[in-house]
C-alpha cells in the first residue's frame, strides 16, 4: 500500500521538492545577505558606541522584504492542500479507479489511512523545512525588530506552519471526498485555507490565553506615535499602537475620562478643523486638539513570553482540526462512497 502511495505521489512530490529547493536557495541567499548587512551595520556602530538606532535601521531595511516573504509563505498551506490533498481521493473517484483499487485485498480504510498519512507527512516535512529556513534567515532581523508575535510573522516562523500543512492536506482530502471532483475540491481548499488564515489570527488566536489589559492615556505625544487615526466609517480610533515586548490583540476606540467612547462629532471636529497651535508631529494640530480631551484607550495584549505557548496552542488547534477531518474521511469512505 505504501508502494502504491509512493508510485502515485512521486510526480507531485518531485514538483514539490523542486519548488522547495528553489525557495530554499532564495532563503539561504536572503539569510546570508541579512547576516552580511548586520555585520556591516554593527561595524559602523561600534565607533560611536550606540547601536540602537543603527540596528533599527538595519531591521527597517529588511522588514518589508520579510513581510512579503511571510505573506507568500501564508499561501504555502493552501497550495499544499490544493495540489497534494485535494486530488488524493477526488481524482480516483473522477477516473473511477477507486473501483479498481478498492477491490484489491486492502480495506478502504487502510487505503485511505496510508494515502493520507504519506501525503500529510510529506506536506508537513516541506512546510517544516521551509519554515526552519525562513526562521533562520530572518533571525537577526527578528531579534532586533522584536515582532515575531505579530499577526503575519507569527504564522511564518517555527512550528505553526507544520500544523497548517497537516490541516491543509486533511482539508483538501475531505473536500475531494465530498465534491468528488478535483478542480472544485482544489478551489474549495484554497478558499477555506485563505479564509482561515485571516480568521484565526484575528478571531481565534487572541483568545488562546486571557489577554492582559492596560489603559493607555492618549496624550498628543502618544497619538503622534500611532500609525493611523480615524477610520473610513469616521469612528474615533487610533491604529498601529505598539507596546514593547507584547503582541497587541485588541485596542478599544478612544475613550473619555469617564470610560465612554469619544463622540464622533468631537473627533471629527478635531480631525477636520483643529485650533491652530503650530504643533508638530505626525498628526500636528489634530493630535494637540485630541490630547487636550483627556482621552485613553484600553488595550488587550499578550506578553512576549507567551510566544512559545501560543505556537504550541496554535499548532495543537490546527492538528486537532486536521485529525477531525481525517477521522470524518475515514468514517465516510467506508459508509458512503460508491
Amino acid at each position, binding site marked *: 500500500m505504501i508502494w502504491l502511495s509512493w508510485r502515485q505521489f512521486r510526480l507531485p512530490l518531485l514538483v514539490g521538492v523542486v519548488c522547495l529547493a528553489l525557495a530554499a536557495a532564495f532563503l539561504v541567499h536572503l539569510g546570508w545577505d541579512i547576516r552580511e548587512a548586520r555585520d556591516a551595520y554593527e561595524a559602523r556602530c561600534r565607533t560611536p558606541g550606540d547601536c540602537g538606532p543603527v540596528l533599527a535601521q538595519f531591521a527597517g531595511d529588511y522588514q518589508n522584504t520579510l513581510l512579503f516573504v511571510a505573506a507568500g509563505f501564508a499561501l504555502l498551506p493552501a497550495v499544499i492542500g490544493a495540489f497534494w490533498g485535494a486530488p488524493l481521493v477526488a481524482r480516483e473517484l473522477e477516473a473511477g479507479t477507486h473501483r479498481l483499487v478498492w*477491490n484489491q485485498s486492502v480495506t478502504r480504510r487502510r487505503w485511505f489511512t496510508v494515502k493520507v498519512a504519506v501525503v500529510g507527512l510529506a506536506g508537513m516535512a516541506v512546510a517544516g523545512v521551509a519554515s526552519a529556513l525562513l526562521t533562520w534567515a530572518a533571525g537577526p532581523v527578528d531579534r532586533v525588530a522584536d515582532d515575531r508575535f505579530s499577526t503575519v510573522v507569527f504564522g511564518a516562523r517555527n512550528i505553526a506552519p507544520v500544523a497548517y500543512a497537516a490541516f491543509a492536506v486533511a482539508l483538501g482530502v475531505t473536500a475531494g471526498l465530498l465534491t468528488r471532483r478535483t478542480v472544485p475540491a482544489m478551489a474549495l481548499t484554497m478558499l477555506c485555507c485563505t479564509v482561515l488564515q485571516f480568521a484565526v489570527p484575528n478571531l481565534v488566536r487572541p483568545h488562546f490565553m486571557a489577554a492582559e489589559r492596560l489603559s493607555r492615556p492618549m496624550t498628543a505625544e502618544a497619538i503622534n506615535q500611532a500609525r493611523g487615526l480615524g477610520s473610513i466609517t469616521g469612528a474615533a480610533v487610533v491604529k498601529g499602537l505598539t507596546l514593547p515586548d507584547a503582541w497587541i490583540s485588541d485596542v478599544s476606540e478612544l475613550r473619555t475620562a469617564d470610560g465612554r467612547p469619544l463622540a464622533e462629532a468631537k473627533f471629527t471636529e478635531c480631525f477636520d478643523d483643529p485650533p491652530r497651535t503650530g504643533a508638530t508631529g505626525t498628526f500636528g494640530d489634530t493630535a494637540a486638539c485630541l490630547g487636550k480631551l483627556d482621552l485613553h484607550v484600553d488595550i488587550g495584549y499578550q506578553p512576549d513570553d507567551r510566544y512559545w505557548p501560543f505556537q504550541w496552542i496554535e499548532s495543537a488547534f490546527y492538528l486537532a482540526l486536521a485529525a477531525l477531518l481525517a477521522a470524518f474521511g475515514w468514517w465516510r469512505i467506508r459508509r458512503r462512497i460508491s
Partner: protein
Amino acid sequence: MPPDSTPVLHAEGLTKRYGRRPALTDCHLSIPPGRVIGLVGPNGAGKTTLLQLAGGLIAPTSGTLRVLGAPPAANAAHVARVGFVAQDTPVYASFTVADHLRLGARLNPSWDRSLAERRIAQAGLNPAQKAGRLSGGQRAQLALTIAAAKRPDLLILDEPAAALDPLARDAFLRSLGDFVAELGASAVLSSHLLSDVERVCDYLIVLRDSRVRVAGEVRELLAVHHGGTGTLADLVLGHLREGSR
C-alpha cells in the same frame, strides 16, 4: 472452488434505493458455487446495482446479502476472495501494464505472479506500455488479469465486454473461460448481449424493472421453457416481454 456448498451469493429481501428511485427491489437469490452466472436485463434494470452490492462498493437500503458466506467486503481477507472488474474496466492511465501487476502483487497476499504474467503475454500486452494508451479490449484484458491473479473464489464482472468490438469480445470471453477453469472459481457476469451469456454461462438471472424475473440453471430453464426446444434468447425475451405486459 469453496470446499463446502456455501452459496456464492445469498440475498434475502435485498433492496437498494437511490432517493426514491428503486434500483433493486426485494431480491431473493441463492446461487450454488461453481457456476458461471449470467445477469441479463435491459439497461437500468439493476444489474450494476446488484453487482456493486456484491462487491461491497455500495451498501443495501434494506435486506441482506451474503457473498461466499459473509457480508460483502467484510474485511481484507474477504475482499481477497472476490475479484471485481468494474464497468468500463478502470485502470490507472499513468501506470504501465507492469505497474498494474506490481500493484496487484503488493496489494494482494494471494497474488499469482506467474499466472498474471502468462496471461498478459497471451493477451499480447506490452508490460512497458502506459495503461492510458491501451485499446478498450486490451484494458479489459488487463483489468480481468488483475482481478483473476489474486486467485479469487468469485469473479464479478460488470458489463466487461459491452464496449468491445466483436474480435476483442471474443478474445475476452475466451480469457474469462480459461480463468474460470484454471481458478475453479465461480463468476458473475452482467451483460445485455445474450450471445455472450449463452456462450459462457450455465446459470441465468433475468432482471427487469429492479426485480428478479427468473433465476436458475440454464439447462433446467430451457427444459421447462417450450419443452426444451427454444433457445436462450427466446427464453430471456419471453421473460422480459411477460414482465412488460
